[in-house]
């Protein structure tokens, strides 16, 4: 079978990509998508650990389910906020949202 390391490394790569996306992207929606990527990586991690290391209680899988749920809810909520921001200010780039600083 495939060693667990493969999954973990895949997860790490996805997480890094997501992280890069958050740091580099300007658009709020794109950032949100990047966060989703990171969460995907987390989920991979959880599942891999659950099925390889902890199959008896498979907490990881449960965790993964919840993470997915939360992630979905998060997207919904975040999009609502982004939408609200756009309606009020016609912007969706996060670096333009700097009314408050210093």
């Amino acid at each position, binding site marked *: 079978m495939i060693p667990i390391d493969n999954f973990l490394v895949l997860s790490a790569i996805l997480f890094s990509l997501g992280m890069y996306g*958050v*740091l580099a*992207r*300007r658009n709020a929606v794109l*950032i949100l998508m990047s966060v989703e990527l990171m969460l995907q990586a987390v989920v991979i991690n959880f599942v891999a650990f659950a099925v390889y290391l902890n199959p008896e209680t498979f907490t990881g899988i449960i965790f993964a389910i919840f993470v997915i749920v939360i992630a979905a809810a998060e997207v919904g909520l975040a999009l609502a906020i982004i939408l609200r921001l756009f309606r009020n200010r016609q912007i969706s780039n996060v670096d333009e*949202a*700097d009314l408050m*600083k210093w």
Partner: protein
Amino acid sequence: MGMDQAWLIPAIPAAAFAILLIFGPYLPRKGDWLAIAAIGASFVLVFPMLADLLDQADGTTYVAGEKAWEWLSFELAGVGETFEIEIGFYVDPITIVMLAVVTLVALMVQVYSIAYMKGDLRYGWYFTAMSLFAASMLTLVLANNLLLLYAGWEAVGFCSFLLIGFWWEKRSAAEAAKKAFITTRIGDVGLLIGIIMLWHEGPNTFNIQEIIHFAEEGGYGNTYLTAAVLFLFMGALGKSGQFPLHVWLPDAMEGPTPVSALIHAATMVVAGVYLVARMLPLFEVADPIALDIVLIVGLTTVMISATMGLAATDIKRVIAYSTLNSLGLMFVALGSSAVAAAMLYLFVHGFFKALLFLGAGSVIHATEEQDMDRLGGLAAKMPITAATFAIGTLAMIGIVPLSGFWAKDEVLVFAEEEQNIIVYLVLLSSLVITGLYMMRLFVRTFLFAPRVQETYAHAHEGGLLITVPLLVLGLLATVGGFVVFDEVGEALGFPGGFAQFVFLHGAHEFKFHLDTAITSTALAGGGAVAGWVLWQDKAALAAHIRDAFAPVSALLANRYYIDEIYQFAIDRIVLVLGGIIAWVDRVVVNDTGVNGSANLGYFAGFEIKFLQTGRIPNYALAIVAGILVLSIVMLVTQV
């Protein structure tokens, strides 16, 4: 009544002071009678004291009386000793002499003041302060320990400040008072250090006799003791107006003239002499350099004061210079270990100097003028004043048989015997100068034609209150000197004579060297005659000489520029230093040190806040950076 009641002597004026301070304004005549009664009572009390002392005398040896009360005391942790400060009185012949001079002169001066100060705005306050002064001075004299002595010492200084500045509305009076206090205070720094030094290595007491005893047994190290007594001497230097701290005394003449008579002639200024005389055993045990310094200081003062007296025109100032002159002479005597001579001089000086001041006061009272260039010929209008003043002048110059002669002669004898010839010669030369300027004073004030007719016109002799003290003092100034003769002393009831009485440490007779006497009388008389000649009538000759030696006379008139040097030192050094430190405090310590560190925090905050850009990617980067640093450092350090 006996020596145990000695505390009453200062206590009575002190009580008078307290009453006057609080109730004075409500008393009839502002309570002047109370002050005079108090000092009179003190004066009277001296006699039982004296009688007691004489009663207890064992042949020619006198037994000193001492009584003390604890003022404060506490155990010293882990040492087993007790730190104790007492209030105590010590009565021995020196004390008695001082008490007599102080109370008598004070009495005379206060009686005189009733007339002199009449109508003054602060008439009551004058007597209040005078009472305080009397109490302080008597405490100083009677004190059995150095600390009480110091207390009295400071208190008389304070009274001097009050009384010099009595007319404080005058800028010059206020300044003079300040100058007097601060100058003497500088000396007192030394005094206090000296006292503490004597206590520190000493027998854990401030008692003077115990300290002396301890010192005589070699308890102190030689160098240590020398240093300590020199510090003590610093105090005497300031209080007695010795060079270089003499500058305050001439200025002190801003005070009312009776004050000058009492404080700045007869009593307070001789406290330094008294202190050194009291502590002389220590000086003798210490390195000889200590006494040499006393001598040199005295000699210097004698010369500079005498020469400055030549150039002064204010009559009170001239007398002040003569006071310095006399005090210098006393220190010369002390420097020669001639305590009896010094005390004798102190005794008679009190009378004739007070007399001179009161005489001057009488003149000033009558003419409201104290510049001798604007006086003259007053003898005609004020015969009693002129006569007593003449006695005082001659006593000061040292003409036989007035009191000053005998005392001065003793000093000269000791100087000749104990010291080298230079000292003697210098002293002799000072006699000439003394003759010159004293005669100048008398001649210019009382004789020949009046220079300002107007002033002369309303000059008049004062009332009895003024003339009686003058006469009493004149009498004393005339006959006071005869106590040098043991016969006189014994006749007065002192076993062994006055010299034996005053000097406690074995026989130390007054000596009379005829050649010395003749030399000194000749020189002093010569000086006086020369003075008469120089300043007679229009003083043309003196003016001629003055013009011929213009730089010298300018030097003298400007008092050797010593005041200017001090002024310079204060303005340019002390005040500038103070200014620099104040500036450093504000700019460096405060603005840089304190505000600077505050600003550092402020600007750190200012810089850091710009990291807060308001942009999400930056914020996210901070999170990432934080996690990366945490992870990497944790992995590196822990794995």
